[in-house]
């Protein structure tokens, strides 16, 4: 009897196990002409003016189209929803929206869709991380004062003048303002965003080539092609499934196994195998990202004439060519100016602007550092966050390079900070005593974006608190200049001020990388290192 019972139990267990095994699978692979792609959990709610990192930006790029759109290949700002943007004085703009555009819920896109969205983004009460993008518009100080409560709900510089026209008045002249309008924060929003806000966040509705079908926060989002999309860049596939990965290594392994179609961040450790693993299905293209070492100018030791020479000397002591080749396997390129190759020479990129100051020259570096009175404080500590990227490797390599040049093993050491949050916190509290890692990912492909937010007095990302009257003056003049080529020339002049003071040491231009399975064709990354999903062909 006992034996029979045991046999039954075993048979039952076997059945359960088989059933369990049958349950598995089915979820990862995507049928039809739908592709799956790696994703990271967006840090903030998916509102256009609240998304300041690339993972949320990825989604916004699929479900929204703004007045302008940056060409995925050239990065040039081209009219999308804008029919015309007129100005006579670079300060008052009249914007006409094209007719025939709709949100995927059927609501037409009007001038109100833009003005309401921008007012929402600027208002202090809504806690939008990208609010400062609206800071050029008149009346911003009323809706978003630095301290205290807001005294106005809407920006006085925005006025709807017709169903499809509105005017923008800026607080100062800014000739390239229309070209900034391709940034996600300037996207139009449907009424549902304001009336049913939490429902909208659960399933965002936009006016782009894709519509969100379902969204499980922290896990995955399925997007389907929106057949009613009126724009010229209709999706060439049926949809995209974004799957959240904690570790890009897992995503990479999944692509190798065919369980995932596209991974858009090849982990540094896999770079040496990627060509044998994926063959031609690996792309590595320049992105608008520049890595620099910033300095704490609020520390008097770093804000002297001698320290200027030391900074230039340090720049010349870094063997950029060797580090990008050995550590980054040429996924980064030694920087020779303070912008990015994706701007193109028309857009203000000027290779070699840094000149000798960015070339590896041990003898000259030693001389400059000695003339400048040596490293302030005796030892150089490069601060970085150790929790993401491969920062430790390159910081150690930079230090090695400097130590070799100076013939002193203790001249430079890395100073890791545990988490990114703490790193940012220490920077915000002016606790830096030496150079620190600074990465700049452009918001829009303009030379202005590589200079003004980083080096203008009191600018939003001027973490080192560098200040130079000549630089500020040149930037002001450049913004007021209505001729584009003339404006770029002035920005480049301002850039030479940055160079002569070595306000930040440019290290390398970063590339975007991606790998994909043989189901996909025409995969490319745009200058923001985001895959151009609507161009991808499946099958």
């Amino acid at each position, binding site marked *: 009897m006992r034996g029979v019972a045991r046999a039954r139990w075993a048979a039952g267990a076997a059945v359960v196990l088989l059933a369990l095994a049958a349950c598995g699978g089915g979820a990862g692979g995507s049928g039809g002409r739908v592709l799956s792609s790696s994703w990271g959990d967006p840090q903030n709610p998916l509102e256009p003016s609240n998304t300041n990192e690339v993972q949320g930006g990825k989604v916004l790029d699929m479900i929204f189209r703004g007045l302008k759109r940056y060409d995925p290949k050239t990065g040039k700002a081209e009219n999308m929803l804008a029919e015309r943007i007129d100005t006579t004085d670079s300060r008052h703009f009249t914007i006409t929206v094209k007719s025939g555009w709709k949100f995927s819920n059927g609501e037409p896109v009007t001038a109100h869709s833009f003005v309401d969205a921008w007012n929402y983004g600027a208002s202090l009460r809504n806690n939008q*991380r990208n609010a400062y993008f609206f800071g050029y518009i008149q009346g911003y100080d009323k809706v978003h004062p630095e301290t205290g409560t807001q005294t106005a709900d809407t920006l006085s510089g925005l006025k709807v003048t017709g169903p499809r026209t509105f005017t923008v008045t800026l607080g100062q002249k800014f000739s390239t303002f229309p070209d900034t309008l391709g940034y996600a924060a300037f996207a139009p929003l449907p009424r549902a965003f304001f009336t049913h806000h939490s429902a909208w966040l659960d399933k965002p509705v936009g006016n782009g080539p894709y519509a969100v079908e379902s969204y499980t926060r922290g896990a995955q989002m399925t997007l389907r092609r929106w057949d009613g999309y009126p724009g010229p860049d209709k999706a060439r596939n049926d949809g995209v499934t974004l799957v959240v990965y904690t570790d890009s290594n897992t995503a990479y392994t999944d692509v190798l196994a065919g369980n995932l179609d596209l991974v858009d961040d090849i982990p540094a450790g896999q770079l040496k195998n990627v060509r044998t693993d994926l063959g031609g299905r690996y792309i590595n293209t320049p992105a608008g990202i520049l890595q620099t070492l910033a300095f704490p100018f609020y520390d008097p030791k770093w804000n002297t004439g001698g320290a200027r020479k030391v900074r230039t000397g340090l720049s010349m002591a870094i063997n950029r060519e060797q580090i990008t080749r050995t550590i980054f396997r040429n996924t980064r390129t030694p920087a020779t100016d303070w912008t990015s190759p994706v701007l193109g020479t028309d857009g203000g990129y000027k290779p070699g602007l840094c000149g000798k100051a960015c070339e590896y020259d041990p003898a000259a570096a030693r001389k400059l550092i000695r003339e400048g009175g040596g490293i302030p404080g005796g030892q150089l500590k490069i601060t970085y966050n150790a929790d993401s990227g491969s920062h430790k490797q390159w910081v150690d390599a930079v230090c090695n390079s400097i130590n070799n040049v100076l013939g002193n093993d203790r001249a430079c050491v890395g100073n890791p900070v545990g988490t990114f949050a703490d790193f*940012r916190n220490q920077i915000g509290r002016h606790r830096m005593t030496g150079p620190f890692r600074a990465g700049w990912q452009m918001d829009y492909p303009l030379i202005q974006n590589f200079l003004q937010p980083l080096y203008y007095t009191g600018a939003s990302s001027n973490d080192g608190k560098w200040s130079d009257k000549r630089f500020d003056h040149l930037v002001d003049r450049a913004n007021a200049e209505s001729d584009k080529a003339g404006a770029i020339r002035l920005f480049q002049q301002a850039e030479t001020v940055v160079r002569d003071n070595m306000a930040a040491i440019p290290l390398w231009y970063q590339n975007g990388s991606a790998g994909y399975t043989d189901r996909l064709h025409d995969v490319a990354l745009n200058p923001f290192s985001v895959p151009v999903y609507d161009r991808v062909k499946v099958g």
Partner: protein
Amino acid sequence: MGRYVARRLLQMIPVFFGATLLIFLMVNVMGDPIAGLCGERACDTATAAQLKRQFGLDMPLWRQYTTYMGNVFTGDFGSAFNGQPVTQLMASAFPVTIRLTVVAILFEIVIGIALGVVTGLRRGRPVDTSVLVLTLVVISVPTFVTGLLLQLLLGVQWAWIKPSVSPEATFGELIVPGLVLASVSLAYVTRLTRTSLAENRRSDYVRTAVAKGLPRRRIVVRHLLRNSLIPVVTFIGTDIGALMGGAIVTERIFNIHGVGYQLYQGILRQNTQTVVGFVTVLVLVFLVANLLVDLLYAVLDPRIRYA
């Protein structure tokens, strides 16, 4: 029995408060979470101040803790920085991790105890030696090596399984991750069972049972195993808590969105509410598992009585 349980439950209260307070302090020591929230670019001062107010970070630490604990008792664990309530995160993460833990514990019980019995009864034989060597290997190899190796072999080379687990995380998909998670504990369970069994084999009651002429199977299962399992049950009981909280590495390798994933994310983003919330629940799981283990002793060994 009832009084014992009541006493144990009362003891849990200070442990619970102490543990949550410690975690709360540790997360706060890491610094200002708002700085990380704003990304590479610092938020403007007005927005930062408003965010601080919204998350209650502008209050003194003791106020933050008392408010938080007050909310916890009404079932409100706060919300993560992306606006999602922590209870919602828990509702999605805990079922996944519980499934993973169940798979791992089943592996420990079924394979671990079976191997322990086999080796314990055949001490010194080739089976015993080879299993012992094997457990030694498993214990000495870190989990992430086992995990990545199995993922590469089974997932990519032989394509038997998918290298990662889908968001649904069904039991079938969790078999390999569960095995990886259980591997080290499994080896310990094998060794514990083996030693305990080998010791008890020489005891008087076993000799009596053999002399009475009981069937061998009955001696092993009813008498020998039941008495030898007490240390093993203790181990597995405490392991439940360790597996649930300590699955960070395994969950990362197989991309499982469970408790480990949420904790990792919470720590990286310095999200006090997420970290404290999850750890609080884990502390409770630990405490309850320990109580159950203690009660199970009485079932296994009638000589143990609680008053």
